[in-house]
């Protein structure tokens, strides 16, 4: 994939003081979504024509993406455009607040764009309609092909201004694309924008691939490949497509994840029927054994400060979740509830660990504090697992499989997301069946 050049020139030309302005409380779920009007961005008539690119509707398209992003949070209620009362260019200059209040909007997004010298220049504003104030005004310049990302960045800036938390729209999902019958699944590494667009396949499906995970800068993916029928952890450079095996282990390596600084990969290595956790420094290639126990130790995940590792072990007889220092000392079991626990993943905020729980034949996605207290089960189903955090630690993405009949029919694997409030469960559209999602960090920072 081509390196994405994104010159983001954010110039804040007014910065309002914050008192009395609207805010969205994201801690309580979607009980009262904020009515917001997203005016189509005005397209400057001086805009250049670009071959195979529809300029005239670009402002409309960008506003649609922003609306869809807002709607997906469950926190906002984007209002229908046919009730809009002002033309986009005039509204962008100075909205008639009372007119917008009439349609029950509390916030308004306006903007304009211009394509000049093969560059897309966008500016947008967020208005508090109740206080009759501008809350944010930003402009940036990029290549026209990046127009979808423009919409995602606008969404992130507005989300951030209204909720006080960083957004998660200008992000990607790496996942495993699945096709074919259940007993002969063809699996490929795939990549898409957070909203399901721009899907790219990174492998051809010739060998089984599983569990892709991004590095912190989103340029690399580590994953398990059965290349030449030798299941090993691999590293893939998304831009160049270059793949390499991680380390020369005399047996299966699996369950890889990057350390928060991106310098190491932590994974399981299975030898003679025993899986332990190892790390490998990607620069020095030094391998370190972290757990040494005659039971299964797998699914390791670092805390965001890199000081701790949470993992999954059956050393107690059943699959449970543990936390240890990253050198392997001070191992402590943190789950004690009834049922099995797997796939612990540390939140990017550091406060919570997400997990899969299996109890009485049902599968749950849940969160708990990193000492195991405060367990909350967010969603229950026939089969679901492998949560991955949104970069702001507010949303989890995971995959869900359906039951199949005696011939294997009825089987499907889909990506789903849910807020850690337990609200706003929704399915993510993918071109094919999908599993093992990994959420990137924000692409533009």
């Amino acid at each position: 994939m081509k390196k994405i050049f994104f010159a983001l020139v954010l110039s804040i030309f007014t910065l309002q003081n914050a008192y009395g302005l609207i805010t969205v409380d994201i801690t309580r779920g979607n009980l009262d979504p904020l009515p917001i009007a997203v005016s189509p961005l005005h397209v400057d008539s001086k805009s250049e024509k670009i071959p195979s690119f529809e300029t005239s509707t670009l402002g409309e398209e960008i506003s649609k993406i922003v609306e869809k992003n807002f709607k997906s949070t469950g926190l906002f209620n984007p209002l229908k455009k046919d009730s809009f009362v002002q033309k986009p260019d005039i509204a962008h200059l100075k909205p008639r607040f009372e007119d917008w209040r009439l349609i029950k909007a509390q916030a308004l997004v306006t903007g304009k764009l211009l394509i000049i010298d093969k560059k897309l220049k966008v500016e947008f504003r967020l208005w508090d309609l109740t206080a009759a104030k501008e809350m944010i005004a930003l402009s940036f310049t990029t290549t026209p092909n990046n127009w979808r990302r423009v919409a995602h960045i606008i969404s992130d800036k507005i989300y951030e201004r209204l909720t006080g938390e960083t957004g998660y729209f200008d992000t990607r999902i790496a996942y495993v694309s699945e096709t074919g019958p259940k007993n002969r699944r063809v699996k490929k590494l795939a990549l898409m924008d957070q909203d399901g667009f721009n899907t790219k396949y990174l492998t051809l499906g010739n060998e089984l691939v599983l569990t892709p995970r991004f590095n912190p800068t989103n340029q690399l993916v580590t994953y398990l490949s059965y290349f030449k029928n030798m299941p090993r952890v691999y590293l893939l450079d998304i831009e160049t497509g270059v793949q390499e095996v991680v380390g020369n282990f005399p047996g299966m390596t699996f369950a890889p994840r990057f350390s928060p600084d991106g310098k190491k990969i932590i994974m399981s290595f299975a030898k003679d029927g025993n899986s332990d956790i190892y790390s490998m420094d990607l620069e020095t290639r030094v391998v370190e054994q972290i757990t040494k126990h005659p039971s299964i130790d797998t699914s390791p995940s670092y805390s965001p400060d890199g000081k701790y590792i949470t993992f999954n072990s059956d050393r107690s007889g059943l699959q449970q979740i543990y936390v240890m220092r990253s050198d392997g000392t001070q191992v402590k079991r943190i789950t004690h509830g009834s049922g099995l626990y797997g796939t612990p993943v540390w939140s990017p905020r550091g406060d919570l660990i997400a997990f899969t729980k299996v109890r009485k034949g049902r599968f749950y996605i849940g969160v708990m504090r990193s000492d195991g207290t405060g367990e909350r089960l967010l969603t229950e189903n026939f089969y679901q697992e492998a949560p991955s955090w949104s970069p702001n630690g507010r949303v989890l993405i995971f995959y869900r499989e359906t039951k199949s009949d005696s011939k294997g029919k009825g089987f499907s694997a889909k990506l789903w997301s849910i807020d850690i409030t337990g609200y706003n469960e929704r399915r993510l559209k993918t071109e094919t069946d999908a599993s093992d999602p990994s959420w990137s960090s924000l692409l533009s920072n």
Partner: protein
Amino acid sequence: MKFNKAIKNLFIVLFSTLLISACSTAKKATVDTVDDVYTGTDTVEFLAKGVPDRIFFATNKSKLTTASRDTLRKQATWMRKNKDVTVTVEGHADERGTREYNLALGERRANAAKDYLMTYGVSGKRISVISYGKERPVNPASSPLAWSQNRRSVTVKAN
């Protein structure tokens, strides 16, 4: 009248056949697992005459049952007789566990089989192992029977 009687008899025969077959399928579903381990023969293939290729496990377990040990001893005897044969033991799990744990579990199951073959005189150099976790079910259904058939290790010829 005679004709009628013949038809009647035929019906009785048909009906009882149906009954018997209904009984046998019902029986099969319950008898085919003992202590959560599949004991049937539906999915089993053979490495050679009288040498079954696979053994079955209880949920989340890799302990060998008496029947599994019996099968593995047959495999070991056959391998000792056929000295040029090398094998791969494939370890599998059912779909009711998390993917990564199942990969480890499949590896543990395959090694349990490998260790037993070695105990009965087969060189470890002739046996490689691979785990497929839950990725290669032999029975694609979502039912306790299918899951018991999928919790398996299969010895396959590698050369």
